Every structure is written in C-alpha cells, then in structure tokens.
C-alpha cells in the first residue's frame, strides 16, 4: 500500500510555490541569495544613506564582524543583476530580519518576496497590471485593489497597493519604478532601460489567506498548526 502518512508542507512554502508558478508563467525567474549581506548592498546602493532618517524605517541586526542581516530582499537587486544583462524578470523569495519587538503581528524573522522587471519602455501601467495579475491569482478574480503614492528610497514614482479584505482596505505591498540611480548601480543604463519592483510580506499574505492571527505560530513548529495544512 502507498505510504499513508504524508507530511505537510508549510503554508508559507505553499504560498511561495503559487507565487513562483504564477509569475513563472509570464517569464519571471526565481533566484535566492544570502541572508547576511553588507551595509552597502542592503542600504547604500538602494539610496538609503547612513546619515538619513530613511535608515530608521527598518531596524537592523548587525553582526560582530560588521555585516548586516538583510532587512529586505531588495538587498539582492544589485547582486542579481551583476551577472545578467537586461531584459530581466526576477523573483527573489527569502528570509529577512528586522530588529523589532515581536507580537501577534510583528516578528523579527520574516519572509519576503521581491519581484522586479527591467526592459525597454516598462511603465507604471505595466506594474499595475503585474500586481493585479498576481493578486487575482492569490485572492481570486474579484479582489478589489487600490493604488496610492508612497515613498521608498529605491523607487520613483513609488506606490502602495491596498486590497479590500473583509470590508476593510489593507495595505499589502509596496512598489514603484526602480530609481534611475539604482538601475545605474545595477550596471543598467537608465537612459535606455526602465524597470519596476514590488515587495510583499509572504507571512502576512499567508495569514490573510489562511485566517491565521498570530505570526509567531508560523515559526513555532507547533504540529497542531503544521498538520492543518
């Protein structure tokens, strides 16, 4: 008889699989990279300079040897493009770390997915389309979305995306056109190429999809949680 006991796959892994499959269909390639990186790659090349309050938005863990636990998967933007020439369509899933007090909705260990595309004549309307395409796959065709301006140092114009969830508008991801300076830092000629980028918190998306209220349970290995999926 086939093995009756089948293991369960972590719900966030299942989510990453869906995201990578969905975006894979339109030519996006998933790439992973190191969780411990340099201050330069995590901040400086993304236009988050040391003496600027934009550094305060993400509290950072430092290692004794002067490296940084990446605060966002955007830290991979420059390394990914080091050995690639545009056009490029990339997904970067991975763990990130924030030096924050933990509670039901805040964790120090998080899982993010970064998505970016660089091509000729990519515009914000392409970004809007790509985000809606992904959100419909994850939440159903009838999901309502709203777009507002927001500032992130590595994109310009920048944008926040909200979905209507149980009657309320929830901000679920940040996005924008890759800043020309960041494109240059990637070795990409910003006069010739443009790009968009967006990032989402996979834990948060999983919690919405599965009706989980406390993020800490996801990392607790409590089998009464893991076996439910």
């Amino acid at each position, binding site marked *: 008889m086939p093995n009756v006991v089948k293991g369960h796959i972590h719900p966030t892994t299942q989510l990453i699989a869906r995201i990578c499959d969905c975006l894979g269909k*339109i030519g996006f390639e998933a790439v992973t990279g190191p969780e411990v990186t340099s201050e330069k790659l995590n901040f400086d090349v993304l236009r988050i300079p040391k003496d600027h*309050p934009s550094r305060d938005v993400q509290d950072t863990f430092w290692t004794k040897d002067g490296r940084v636990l990446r605060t966002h998967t955007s830290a991979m933007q420059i390394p990914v493009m080091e050995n690639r020439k545009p056009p490029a369509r990339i997904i970067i899933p991975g*763990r990130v770390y924030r030096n924050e007090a933990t509670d039901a909705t805040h964790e120090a260990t998080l899982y993010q997915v970064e998505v970016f595309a660089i091509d000729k004549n990519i515009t914000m309307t392409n970004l809007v*389309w790509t985000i809606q395409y992904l959100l419909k796959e994850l939440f159903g065709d009838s999901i309502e979305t709203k777009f*507002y301006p927001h500032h992130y140092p590595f994109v310009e114009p920048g944008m926040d995306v909200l979905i209507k969830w149980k009657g309320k508008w929830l901000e679920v991801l940040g996005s924008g056109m890759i800043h020309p300076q960041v494109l240059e830092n990637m070795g990409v000629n910003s006069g010739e190429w443009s790009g968009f980028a967006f990032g989402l918190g996979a834990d948060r998306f999983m919690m919405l999809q599965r009706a989980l209220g406390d993020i800490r349970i996801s990392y607790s290995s409590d089998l009464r949680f893991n*076996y439910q999926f």
Partner: protein
Amino acid sequence: MIIPKDWLREFTKDINQDNVVEDLFGLGFPVEEESQEYIDIEVTPNRGDVFSIHGAAREINAKNGYATGLYQEYEVGGFKNKSDIVSIDENAGSAVLRYAYLVAEVDVRASDELVCRRLKQIGLNAKNNIIDITNYLMHESGQPLHAFDLDKINQIRIGFAEDGNNITLINGDTLKLSSNTLVAYDNERIVDLAGVCGAENSSVDNNTKKVLIQAAIFDPATIRRTSKSTTTITPASMRYERGVDYNLPPQVITKCAKLFEQWGYRIIDKVDLKLMPQEAIDINFDSSDVESIAGIAVDSSVVNKSLNDLGFSTDGVITVPSWRRYDINCKQDVVEEVLRIVGYDKLIPAELTPAPAIKNSQAFHSGIIQAMTAAGFTEVWNYSFLSDKEADALGTDKNSLVEITNPISSENKYLRPSLLPKIAKAIASNPGFDKVSLFEIGNVFIDNMETTKVAAISTSAKSFNGSLINHKPLLIGPDSEIGRCYKLRKSVYFVEIAIDSIQADDDGIVANNNQYREISKYPAVVRDISVLVRPEVDVRTVAKSIVNRYQFVLLAEPFDEFESTKFNGNKSISLKIIIQDLNSTLSAGQADTMLDQILDYLSSEYDAKLRT
C-alpha cells in the same frame, strides 16, 4: 503627525473639507487615525516639508487646484545682515546654513486658550507664552524655533562640543556630548544642543525680561548625528533631519515679531544671516516624460498646473521649490508629483509583453519538499537565532559562530550554524504526538559562510529508509547535551546535508486552501480510531471531511492503512482525532459523545465499520 482640523482649515479655506482624508491618501500621506478634532498622518522621511500644518495644507490645496503661500499677510523685511551676538566657529561653517533671529523685551505670561488647546492636541504641555509660541509656530510652519533668555547669556557661538563635555537640558536630564555634536557656546559654557534641545542655563522662565528667538537652518546630517549620539529625538531634530525650507526663517521671525508687538513687546533687533545661500535646482523635464514613465498621457496644461500649484515653476526647465530640494532631483520625481495630483487611480493596467514561461521549482527546492513529504516528513520553519545555552548544547566552537551585536534578547545571540538544535526542539515541544518525522530547509551560518541545508529528524530511524535523505541518521538521546537542553523524552534520529548534494524530480508543489483552526488554550482530547472501509475510499478524503464537518475537531491525521483477508475485501484505516473546545477543558464523557458523532457520520457517509 497630528493635524488639528480647525488649524488646518485656517490654511485650506477654499476646498471641500469632506474630501481631506481621501486627498491625503491620494497625495501619499496615509491617514492613520481620524477623530472629530484631528487627523493623524504618516509623513515619510523624504517629506520634511509636510511636517507642519502649512505643509500639509499646501499639498491638499494643490490637489484641489490651489497654490498657497505662508504668512502672506506679513511683509517680510527690516532684517540686518550682521550680528554682535551670534557667530559660527570656522569648523562648524558647513553645519549652519542660515541663522535668523529677533531680540525683544518681554514679560512672560500664560498663553491664550487657542494656543494651549492646539498644543495639547499635538501632545505638548503649555509652559509660558514665549516657549509655547516657539512650539506653536514650529508646528504651524515647519521651522524649528528656539528661545534664549538673553540676560542669562552674552553670546551664541555655534561650534562642536568636545568629547566628555556635558549639557543639562531644559527638562533636567544631563547628556554626555562628543566631538560630533553641534552646540551653542556662551564663551566656554555650553548653552544649547543646537537643533535638538535647549539647555537649562539659557532657558526662558517666568522672570525672563529679554529674549532672542532663533530660526536657524542646520545641516540635516549634522543634527541627525547629534540626535543619534545623544539618543535624543525632539520635534525640532526630526524636522532638521529631514531638511527645513531655506526660506522659512525670516518669514517665521516676521510672524513672531508681529505677535510680540500685539502683546506689547518691544522688538529691539531683527537679523538674518544668509550663510550658505542655496542654488536653485533645475530639472530637465517634458510633459511627454509622464507618458514614458507612467504609461498614461497627461495633457501639458494639466502637468503645468499641477506642478505650479505645488510650487514648481515650469518655465522651460522645472525649478524645484525651496522646500522640496531634499526630495526632488530627477525627472522621475517630477512625474510622481504630477501623478499625485492627477491621481494614481488614473493608471490603467497594461499587460507585460509576453515572455517564455519559466519553471521555478529549483529556487524553493520543490522536488526535495515533495520527496520528503511523500516519505512522511512534515515541513517546519524555525527561527534562525540561537541562545548561548543552545550553542553550548550543540557544541560548536563559539569563535566560528556569527554573533549579533544588537540581538532582540540574549536568547537570540547567534545565527544558527546548523538546523539542529531547533528541529530537535520541535520534537520535544510536541509531546502530544508520539511518532513524528520533520524536515526543514534553511540557511546556516559559520564564520562568513552561508549554506542552504536540509535537515530531517524522526522518532524512528526506519523513517529514513528509502527516503531522499538515505544517510545513516545520528542518534540523539534524552541524555545527550541536546536531549537535556530540550528535555527530550525519547531518542530521535537526525540527518543534515547541504541542499546542493541532492537532486529530486519535481512535479510542482500542490497548494491547498486549508483555513487555520484556532488551537484551544484548554487541553484537547486525543482518540485514535480504526474503521473498515471499502478499498477505493481515500483516507485523506475521509480525514478532510471530518475536519470540515466538525468544528471541535482540530486535526484528523491518518496514521495507518492496510488490507487483510480477515476484512472481507475491506481495508482498515486509522486516524488520530484531536478534539477540543475553545472555551473549556472537555470531559471524557463530552469527548466520547463527539467521537460517537464522528463514527456515526463515517458509518453513514462511507459505510465505515468500527474495528473491534
């Protein structure tokens, strides 16, 4: 930032007040809270110019088609350009961009009701009319002001402190200073933490008769360094860090002087030292840039009006207004300005050009996950940090561990060099399950090497037979270091290898839509059931139908399935059922009743017979 609504209305008279909240969202300032009296908005680090009532009003008016000016009713003039009181040390030359001030003879009183009420709304206590008006005008205009008692000091010399200097602030706290903190000296005494907070020794009190009101522009990075090194954050330091409008000082000193005159004070002197005049920032931009970046065409008349209302001049090149010089430097910034007025809702989705599909399972090791789950191992996610105790139990040389300088707690001092020990903890912390096989894929850290590994652990060594990780597992007993660290009750078997060393075929992971059912705080009851069913019945379908039907079932886990000639062509399936109540501990009797319900259901739905 809190914006009292009646204060805002002073600057936004011509607009529809009902739309203000939506306008703010549409401009990029999310409203975090709204009450009858105020709106609380998020101001991002690039927009120091909106850290004021006037700044927010300017944005809202532009969204509604109006341009605004600050304090237009006051004619700015009559400032001298030399000072007998204020000087700047040579080595502090690049830290002070402008310094304007007035000197007045005063008598200190209580503030009027309006000022007291508005200060309270923004979270400040009223102290006296001099200190209060500096806070009031700062919150209104965005220009930090500071009041010195001119009978307590003779000069204001801006320079850097020396390592080991002290300052006692207005609130009585004493801070240690260092050579990167900007201060004001009166001869050798330190009388102000420049741009951050005033000192006790020069502060205005009820007996003050002569004041100097300072409106200065400091270099943002310098003030940020002071704020960080003294761990002091004030409304003034927050504004300076983000960059204050170079043109504000004389405007705000003018308004302050008018108010003082209304109060019957004599203005002795007004000085404006334009130490580092700012060159205009011009940007090459054309209306067609909107379409190439945003993807929608906006008429050039709309582009120009939007920019003009926001304070940009559009004569050939785009000239950036003085309050946006810290934020606007390329044509992409200008495009965002146009879109903020026009509205991001005008962005119509445009499909990406088609590209060949890519199969992505390698990046998240889908083949390995499929192989492990097929062999009965459940995937867990654990934290990446270890404590000293755990590192000791693991026995790794601490010199090769990656140590965090600022961990959230001492429990999280190191990065894991291995997926052990946390995966062993996972077994120990699930005593309610006696046969457990788990795996984890994650990164581990030794010195400056980071490797992706897969680790598997099981209560039975046999679980590894025929699985993808077919290595001889390591036995970890309850008396081992790790066993004692986590109080393991029985032996477990463990394997860990680099992910690169194995390959697995891959059909893609199938995700389900299972919703999380809350785990009760109260003890659950666990019952194993074995029933006979026809061979074509899928045990997983049975399990799922039990969970879907009965809210009190937390889990229904299949754990056995076999055929036997004794069963007359049927097969036996066994499931572990966990029954719980969210609000109480179940009695054995209650659990039995619930179990009977389940068995009745299985009997009617699947013709299942309880095995005796």
